[in-house]
């Protein structure tokens, strides 16, 4: 089975996530698009791990999953703070660093 199948699927997921980050206004949806991009990276790591018969890729995929969990926790706390201060979850309302 060509490894390119997995790599191109992963590239597609990454580009979809990039589109979501650029085109979405709602901050929760932007975080979801970031998850899509991280997931694409994981697919690449596991595909190369199987291809090269080396377990390091799978260990790194586990680390990426952990970092993604931490990132979502912090990200949603920030989203909550934006919502509390601006009464809106939309990112284009965030115009100044000092609220």
């Amino acid at each position, binding site marked *: 089975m060509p490894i390119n*199948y*997995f790599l191109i699927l992963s590239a597609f997921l990454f*580009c979809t996530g990039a589109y979501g980050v650029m*085109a979405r206004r709602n901050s929760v949806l932007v975080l979801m698009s970031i998850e899509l991009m991280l997931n694409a990276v*994981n697919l690449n790591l596991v595909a190369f791990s199987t291809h090269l018969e080396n377990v390091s890729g799978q260990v790194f995929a*586990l680390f990426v999953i952990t970092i993604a969990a931490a990132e979502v926790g912090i990200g949603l706390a920030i989203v909550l703070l934006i919502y509390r201060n601006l009464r809106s979850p939309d990112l284009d309302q965030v115009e100044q660093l000092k609220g």
Partner: protein
Amino acid sequence: MWAQEVAFWIIAVAMAGAAIGVVRSNNVVHAALFLVVVLAGSAAQYILLLAEFVAWVQVLIYIGAIVVLFLFGVMLTRAPMREEAGKLDNNQRLASGVVALFLFGVLTMFLVDAFHGDEVKFKDSLVQLGSTNNIGNSIFHDYVIPFEVVSMLLLAALVGAVALARRD
């Protein structure tokens, strides 16, 4: 061999459709549910790649924890459940689509150029490679310092999330 290819294509089409659903849906909860389909699809791809431990961690952490966090986020920011088309997007959709398509084209071109002819060969020894035993050995022998750093990072993220979200 062909059974794996058929399984790959079925899962890949479902994942691609759901990924487009995540970025195009007009309902935040639907987008979260589409995200579940993408994440479950990648867990299935990991099983196909004989990485069973990573697949189950994906199901537990991503689908079990992260999606629930997202749904809490949707609830706490009172995201509207029913929304007229385009309200969740900003006005740079066209430019983003062009950039994403261009990026996909360039990535595909380079991947086909670099890896055409490389085959993933599924052998019995690969089942051993992705087993919990082998991965545990690798984490606690070769990657023990990154493992400790990640545990500190999780602690910092925990404290940071509480400090940020707390009402004074």
